[in-house]
């Protein structure tokens, strides 16, 4: 091998020497014509060198311009701010216009810092791939007018609901909704859903809104009105409703043709706002819900449900363990949404009925059960892509005193700048019972609401 290399080298050298010798040989045998040829070549070479020098100068100028443009802002200050850096007062130049735009750039120290920033950002974005879908829904409510029974604040950021949703593993997903209100933080819902159970079971474990009727399952921001119906406030625990830590099992049930039937059974600890209170470990509350659904046509469908719930009332253990509250509910929803114009026109009518049977002590300390009834009916119609009009009628007895009945109605107008924000106004009239049967107070109020959604695009409830 070495020999081959040496032979090749010698051959190469010979060729090179011969190549150098040949013009000399020509020259030696030549005369004035050969000299003129050489001069011409020299001139050509000089010309080429000048052209190259000019090109190098142009390229240098362009390179400088590019460097200046790139480094005009950061190069003025030796401190480079990383995206994660905390900016202290005085770190930034007081007068940005004083930065010399053509400050000589110093790429050498800048380069590693830039690389560091990029590496840091890259690592973070990779880590984000496994983050849950995060969203925040802001709910700002204003109220004007007269309400002496249950007045609300003039202006409030009613709640900021942070939602986090993710698939946990091949068998489960989790959803958490944490509500930051004016008075504190509340885990509105946080549960894991097991999606791969046998026998068609769907199990949820955690804190969740109970499957009692319709309105109890809907978050504030997803309601078609600003407030909740009077029946919810009087009989089913108010804004939070039946919302407790527990276990839920749902299963599709055999159904007649073209019907969809679903049954849900839930067990909760037994603490739900004003509805239930668990004084002992055994004071669990339960909820059962049966849903029937049918497509009447491609654009119209009917959704029916009956619900039952039972738990211990909040009178306290001192009065004995036998004070229970039984709640019964029935709901019906009729939807119309033509598929070709679904985003422009749709209509929804919903009504829910509630019966409450609450064990309590009468004013003279005798065991009694108060039977109260409440209902609401609401309708909403989407006029076009941006406007929806709606109305609601309310009537409800008080859970603790069924002889007191509140009545009300509302008119609602909603404007949607986009899918991710909503502006709503609601006129609300109330004929509200006060302490003694027969006495009442009239409420006339105007409510307005601004809703905004940031982050992941959550699924719309059906």
């Amino acid at each position, binding site marked *: 091998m070495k020999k081959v290399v040496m032979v090749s080298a010698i051959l190469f050298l010979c060729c090179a020497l011969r190549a150098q010798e040949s013009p000399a040989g020509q020259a030696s045998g030549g005369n004035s014509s050969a000299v003129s040829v050489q001069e011409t070549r020299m001139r050509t070479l000089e010309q080429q060198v000048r052209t190259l020098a000019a090109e190098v100068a142009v390229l240098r100028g362009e390179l400088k311009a590019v460097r200046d443009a790139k480094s005009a802002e950061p190069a003025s200050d030796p401190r480079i701010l990383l995206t994660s850096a905390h900016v202290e007062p005085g770190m930034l130049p007081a007068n940005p216009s004083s930065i010399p735009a053509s400050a000589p750039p110093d790429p050498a120290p800048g380069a590693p810092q830039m690389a560091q920033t990029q590496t840091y950002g890259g690592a973070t974005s990779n880590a984000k791939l496994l983050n849950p879908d995060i969203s925040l829904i802001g709910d700002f409510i204003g109220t004007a007018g007269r309400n002496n029974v249950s007045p609300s604040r003039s202006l409030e950021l009613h709640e900021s609901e942070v939602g986090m949703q993710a698939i946990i593993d*091949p068998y489960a997903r989790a959803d958490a909704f944490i509500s930051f209100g004016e008075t504190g933080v509340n885990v509105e819902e946080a549960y894991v859903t097991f999606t791969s159970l046998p026998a068609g079971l769907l199990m949820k474990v955690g804190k969740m809104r109970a499957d009692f009727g319709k309105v109890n399952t809907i978050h504030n921001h997803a309601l078609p009105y600003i407030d909740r119906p009077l029946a919810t406030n009087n009989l089913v625990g108010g804004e939070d409703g039946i919302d407790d830590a527990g276990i839920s099992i749902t299963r599709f049930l055999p159904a007649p043709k073209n019907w969809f039937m679903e049954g849900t059974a839930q067990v909760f600890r037994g603490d739900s706002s004003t509805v239930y209170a668990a004084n002992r470990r055994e004071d669990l509350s339960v909820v059962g819900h049966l849903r029937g659904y049918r497509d009447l046509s491609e654009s119209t469908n009917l959704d029916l449900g009956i619900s039952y719930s039972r738990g211990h009332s909040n009178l306290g253990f001192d009065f004995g363990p036998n004070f229970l509250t039984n709640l019964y509910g029935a709901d019906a929803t009729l939807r119309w949404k033509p598929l070709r114009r679904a985003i*422009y026109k749709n209509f929804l009518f919903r009504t829910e009925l509630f019966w409450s049977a609450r064990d309590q002590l009468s004013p003279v300390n005798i065991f009694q059960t108060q039977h109260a009834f409440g209902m609401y009916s609401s309708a909403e119609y989407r006029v076009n892509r941006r406007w929806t009009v709606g109305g609601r009628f309310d009537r409800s007895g008080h859970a603790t005193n069924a002889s007191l009945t509140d009545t009300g109605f509302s008119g609602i107008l909603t404007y949607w700048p986009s899918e991710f924000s909503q502006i709503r106004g609601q006129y609300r009239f109330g004929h509200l019972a006060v302490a003694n049967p027969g006495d009442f107070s009239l409420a006339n109020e105007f409510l307005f609401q601004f809703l905004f959604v940031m982050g992941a695009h959550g699924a719309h409830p059906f």
Partner: protein
Amino acid sequence: MHRCSFGTRLTAVFTALAFLGALLGPAPARAAGKLKIMTATTDLAALAEEVGGEKIEAESIARGYQDPHFVDAKPSFLLKLKRADLLIVVGLELEIGWLPPLITQSTNPKIQVGAPGYFDASRFAKILEIPTGQVTRAEGDVHPLGNPHYWLDPENGLRIAKGIADKLTEMRPEDAVYFAQRYADFEQRLKQAVERWLAEVKPYAGRKIVTYHRSWPNFAEHFHLNVVGYVEPRPGIPPSPQHTVELMQLMKRESVKVIVVEPYFDLKTPNAIARETGAQVLVLPPSVGGEKEITDYFKLFDYDISKLKQAFDATH
């Protein structure tokens, strides 16, 4: 005492129910019956039928004339999803507003995200308009992963069909030859059809059009059309007067004579623009089933191309 034990007994009942459910186990797989395929859109069902033939039953959740961004998660779909062996989705967050709860509530482990029966067709397609840099909703309802209307490029249709054929083969290895033959046949027919379609649109290459929504980038790229503007100021944002005026000026300046509108959008603004600019409004279905006669993937392009040609000829 009778009432005290209520909670305890109920917990016991629940536990017993759960155990009973566990003992019952999953329903035994249907042997050699037709594979039940649910798809998010009609186009994916059409592609599945091309390669699956009589060995499958495919049904779409969304209809071809429905906006696939906004579909109601009706419980009636749950029963179908529960029985599905395979769920084919468009992906790229097109169905994010309605499909996730349906998948979760279907109680079908086979089609959960990441399970073997969950098939994201976008993984096989060439995706356009993937945003770079910062993505915000100031740009409207943007799809951060790219434009999800990719099935309107027939080459993507072929790629997806190949993916479906491979998936079906994996699920039913005994029918591998059948699926391979169906795919080969589809490939041959589609390539011939694409040649024909390209020849048909060749005289109109580079024609400028305006579309309502950004549904057509793949179609426009494949058939050499030039989309110069949109009726929506931003994706998912309804037309505004200012944007409409600007669009009309642009159309006059660029001599744009055709406004393509998907069948689920209101024609009021496009008609007003057309009156002002002398353009023609063309309702063009982007999906199989968008019109009665569009019964398969080939007829979708047949229909759209023939309508486009008519519109170009009429406005020349």
